[in-house]
């Protein structure tokens, strides 16, 4: 998988600073970007035609990638040293890959990878796409949103979220009607009635095992006036799914943190064998059970001994010896 060298380096250096974002810095950064974009709007009109064309067909985008490339480099934003590199709306489309949401319920870490439990009860066994990225995680199940990359690689990106966003996303996936408006429905309605439209959601980067994502809004009738907001992936994916807009993931994140589904390993036969034994024990098979007969003889002998009926105890002992000798011959 090809990694674009141009805009990757400034963002790659960002996690090294290790500082988490603060709201003030995010606000200042957002205001600066709005000014920068407005200035750019007056200078280069062709640029925003390219940006608008970004939502065309993939083949069209691919055909024009050579032309779009030199223009987009000059507008990549840096992180200003606050540790959170905010992806710009004008970043090249090749840096991101489209994804869709899977109906995953929870994620669990096992010794050789991960197990994703789907909604229908199936378990997907996965290994990390990049074995060199070592992520130590606890083995308790976590609520997760799993994104599937739509570029043919079939990578899965699990994002551990809290319980409420996960449940609300699963309800939205099945079009389950929640009788009261959730906060995501309110955000969608609020956006529409204020004259804006949600355009895109991007998972931009990962800092200290926490993913960052951005929500891109555009004014209806004036597509050049855009707003981007920084928010959690759980909220971003919920809003994107309700507004039916694409969810894009940074290629580097998908490569480093993605999972691959593996075929069942031979260790699964042990599970099958175990199940077979259990099902066999649970169901009567209409055969004479030697263990039950032996148990009865031992029981009767001990009861007779306790009740001081020693003649009967001796008889049961003789029957038990005869039964065991017969069984030994059978074996």
């Amino acid at each position: 998988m090809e990694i674009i060298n141009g805009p990757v380096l400034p963002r790659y250096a960002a996690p090294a600073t290790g500082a988490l974002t603060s709201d003030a810095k995010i606000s200042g950064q957002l205001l600066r970007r709005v000014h920068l974009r407005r200035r750019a709007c007056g200078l280069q009109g062709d640029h925003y035609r390219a940006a608008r064309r970004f939502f065309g067909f993939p083949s069209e985008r691919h055909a024009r990638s050579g032309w779009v490339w030199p223009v987009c480099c000059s507008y990549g934003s840096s992180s200003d040293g606050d540790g959170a590199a905010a992806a710009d709306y004008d970043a090249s489309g090749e840096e991101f890959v489209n994804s869709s949401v899977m109906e995953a319920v929870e994620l669990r870490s096992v010794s050789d990878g991960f197990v994703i439990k789907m909604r229908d009860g199936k378990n997907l066994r996965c290994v990390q796409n990049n074995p060199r990225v070592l992520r130590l995680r606890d083995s308790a199940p976590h609520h997760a949103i799993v994104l599937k990359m739509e570029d043919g690689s079939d990578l899965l990106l699990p994002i551990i979220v809290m319980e409420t966003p996960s449940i609300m996303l699963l309800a939205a996936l099945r079009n389950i009607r929640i009788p009261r408006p959730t906060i995501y429905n309110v955000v969608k309605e609020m956006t529409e009635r204020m004259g804006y439209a949600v355009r895109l959601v991007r998972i931009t980067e990962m800092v200290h095992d926490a993913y960052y994502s951005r929500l891109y809004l555009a004014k209806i009738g004036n597509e050049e006036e855009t707003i981007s907001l920084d928010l959690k992936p759980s909220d971003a994916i919920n809003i994107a799914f309700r507004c039916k807009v694409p969810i894009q993931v940074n290629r580097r994140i998908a490569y480093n943190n993605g999972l691959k589904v593996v075929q069942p390993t031979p260790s699964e036969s042990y599970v099958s064998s175990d199940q077979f034994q259990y099902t066999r024990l649970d169901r009567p098979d209409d055969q004479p059970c030697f263990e039950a007969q032996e148990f009865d003889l031992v029981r009767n002998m001990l009861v007779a001994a306790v009740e001081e009926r020693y003649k009967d105890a001796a008889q049961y002992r003789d029957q038990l010896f005869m039964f065991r000798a017969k069984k030994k011959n059978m074996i």
Partner: protein
Amino acid sequence: MAMEGPILCRAVMQAKLPVTMISNSLTKSGQLGTAFLGCVCKYRNITRLISPIYQPAQKNFATVCGSFSSSSDGNGYMAGNFSESDEDYVNSTVLEAVEVRSGAEGYVIKMRDGKNLRCVHNNSQGRNIPESAPQPAIVLRIEDGSETLLPIIVLEMPSVLLMAAIRNVHIARPTIYQVVKEMIDKMGYEVKLVRINKRIQEAYCAELFLTKVGDHTESITFDLRPSDAINIAVRCKVPIQVHRSLAYSDGIRSVEPARMAIAAGMSDGLLFTELDRPDGQPCVEAQEFGLIRNMLIAAVEERYKDAATWRDKLMLLRSKRKNWA
């Protein structure tokens, strides 16, 4: 109870609260008055029919008509309009409550500092209180001097985020409420008001009122859950209002602890504090324990002369103590 509009609600309210409406004399704030000027609309006639006392005041708004009434897409939750009478609502503030437990004796609200408020229903004819385990709740205090509290049971995450917002705790990642606030600011609107306006089958409904910056005649309203609405209101620092009928029918008030509780609590506390603190007096129990311990150790080590000596000292101490008692 399905409501086609505020008509039925007002009728019910009028039947129950004629005195409250007549004695209502709250003064409107200037800002809210300004915000309401451009929003009187299709409920003007209904207001006039129900409230003849305020009929002269309504004439001033006859020439203004708003067209921004929001509906809730036919799912039975009719959103009230911005121009609803201000006298129907009362301001409230948020208490730092963690959870609410209800039982046969009423409600017990656990505050953030660990104290427990014991409350009873404001209206003795209120609906049956079901027994429930402790649940996260947001408790509003009605600010009309009656010291009425209104508990609203919510999910856990809105309750935790509300506690963080009240104490200005910085959360590393932006919550959905901060995103909503930021979105409203960047789209050129501002939050004006949050109202808890009705209850439908144990679930409260809330409204969020927004106006355009610079053009207060353009306003929009949204239906929300009270947990989301109150979280947004606290972050945007706007007033939270509760409908009077809700405060009357569902409100609770704090009661003094019972005497039995006082006696038991005090006695228990006294015992514990007495045991926890050394009082500088010679402790007779400690002396007795020391003698018994030495006697038993001597017996185990077969030092029977010493054991007999300790036994004699123990008996002497006990006889002396019996004389004291």
